[in-house]
């Protein structure tokens, strides 16, 4: 036997399977996320689960807490207000946010500045921003003083502690969640598509209608979902600037916890969580939205 035909020691492990090493590699991603996973499981998931269970087993195993909701006028009204506020706020964010996203993507040198302005609310606490709105919208706040100075009204009008105040403040706080996914979708549109449309005879408006808008729908869907689901759970802002009778679900939950009415609070929490999850699940099946989940993952 010559030396050449003899397999070299290095060639063997390269060709042969190495089951031990392969198995190890498969679990590396899992091991990397394990510390956070355990942390969340022990300190977040288990307490939430325990809390939700109270809606079923307080004082004994029963569905009566849920059944009672159907005849609960306070719950029905609160649920309606919460839903209504979320829809109004989401629409407001969409109408105000889409043009900003378009501007952000179109702007070249100004883009970083615009982005900072959009993200500024992100870096300030919700509490501080809600206080700021109390100052601005109050009887002698900037908005009233300004309207009087402009001669548009004679006496201060009531804005603070109305549903309008809640909507104004929530739109301000949630706008970045609408703008960023839309801007992301717009940025992914190949600029040569816009040139192509123009070269093929489409005016800027027709290009927007037929190319830019449809291609940004995945971002619109993602932003709308995100904004709506976040709005459903808002607590601090409606509690501070909203009307005393316009109670949202999360305010009602807090109220019940204060009164140590744990089972009722847990039932309401479960309903709120289920509503948010149901909306996300349903939206996944809408055309275009499924893609939004995929593109946002890239």
């Amino acid at each position, binding site marked *: 036997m010559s030396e050449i035909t003899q397999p070299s020691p290095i060639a063997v492990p390269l060709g042969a399977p190495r089951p031990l090493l392969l198995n190890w590699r498969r679990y590396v991603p899992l091991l990397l996320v394990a510390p956070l996973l355990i942390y969340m499981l022990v300190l977040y998931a288990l307490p939430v689960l325990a809390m939700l269970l109270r809606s079923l087993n307080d004082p004994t195993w029963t569905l009566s807490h849920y059944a009672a909701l159907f005849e609960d006028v306070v719950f029905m009204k609160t649920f309606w207000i919460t839903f209504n506020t979320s829809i109004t706020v989401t629409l407001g964010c969409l109408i105000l946010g889409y043009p900003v996203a378009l501007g952000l993507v179109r702007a070249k040198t100004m883009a970083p500045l615009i982005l900072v302005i959009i993200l500024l609310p992100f870096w300030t606490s919700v509490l501080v921003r809600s206080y700021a709105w109390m100052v601005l919208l109050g009887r002698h706040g900037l908005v009233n003083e300004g309207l009087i100075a402009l001669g548009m009204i004679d006496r201060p009008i009531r804005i603070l502690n109305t549903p309008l105040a809640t909507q104004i403040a929530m739109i301000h706080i949630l706008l970045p969640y609408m703008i960023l996914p839309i801007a992301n979708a717009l940025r992914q549109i190949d600029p*040569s598509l816009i*040139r192509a449309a123009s*070269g*093929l005879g*489409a*005016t800027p408006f*027709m290009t927007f209608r037929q190319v830019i808008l449809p291609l940004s729908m995945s971002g619109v869907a993602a932003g709308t979902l995100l904004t709506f689901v976040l709005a459903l759970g808002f607590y601090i802002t409606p509690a501070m600037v909203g009307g005393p009778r316009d109670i949202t679900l999360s305010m009602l939950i807090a109220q019940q916890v204060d009164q140590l009415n744990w089972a009722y609070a847990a039932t309401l929490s479960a309903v709120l969580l289920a509503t948010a999850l149901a909306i996300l699940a349903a939206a996944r099946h809408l055309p275009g939205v499924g893609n939004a989940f995929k593109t946002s993952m890239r």
Partner: protein
Amino acid sequence: MGEAGMNGAGRGASVTLADLEKRYDRVNAVDGVSLDIRSGEFLTLLGPSGSGKTSTLMMIAGFEMPTAGDIEIDGKSVVAMPPYRRNIGMVFQNYALFPHLTVEENIGFPLKQRGVPKAERAKLVAEALELVHLPGYGARYPRQLSGGQQQRVAVARAVVFKPRLLLMDEPLGALDKQLRENLQLEMRRLHADLGITFIYVTHDQEEALTMSDRIAVMNDGKVAQVGSPEDLYDRPTDRFVAGFIGESNFLPAIVRGMEDDIVVAECNGTTIRAVCPGRPATGDKVTLTTRPERLRFTDSAWNATPPQNRLSVTVTEAVFAGERCRYMLQAGDGTSLVLKEPSSAAIQRRAIGERAEISWSVADTILV
């Protein structure tokens, strides 16, 4: 022929570029381009990347604003006109098909913008699909097509509204060689069928030579030479053109005089005659250029033309490449030359280190 010629003249737009300039910050992307593109012509802008060919095309299409100069289409200046009013077909390098529209809707897009009624639109789209050999593909989405098919859809979309001018920006760049060669022939056929003016941008000299009526070679934002493929290959007026299109040998020489239109030059003690468009002065230092496949070993059986220019060389490298043999040669002054000889079992191959004499025709020697 008469009818085809007349149709061609009627259907294609003529384009005039006058001292066209495009400056980005301090870089002159396009630096004084003047060009007359004839009605119905297939003109290629050929050049390396950064030569200004794409910027020139983008200005004709209206996507870029010229810094200076004028663009006339059919005698009318279009500089102030937005792209969507210019009525020019355009095929992009990446095809730029609308991903959310089907093939049919993509091709129908320009018709829709022009308010063509739906029934008429369907008829024209079907015709366009027929033209690019894709009937039955109308309901698919672009992502369901291969690169070559997408390219055909892009062409169909660019011609469906019967523009008089079609611009193409390296439309075959992303395709593999085989497909590219097929589509090159198809583009030529399309050009003949439609009779409209084509302006085609590429960096591939072979593609330009195969397809074009005329080629404008661009370098550093300027047009180096405009001419038919034969003109550019046989009579380059510029060292850049001679080097960029095909392979060239360059011989440094000193002008010793003129014999009618023929330049007599001296290259390291050897007299070499060359054709020259201008009249260089005696004593000028010049460069002579020849094509490798037009050089012959003087004693070779292939050598049919009367040897007019002769040079003694040493073989430094010999490569057998199937259909031809390629030799690297060195002249007395150290200048390297390439010689390509059709291969034949009847011809003795040269060995490295062998001394030989090569010869070639004066007509194939150009002063650049």
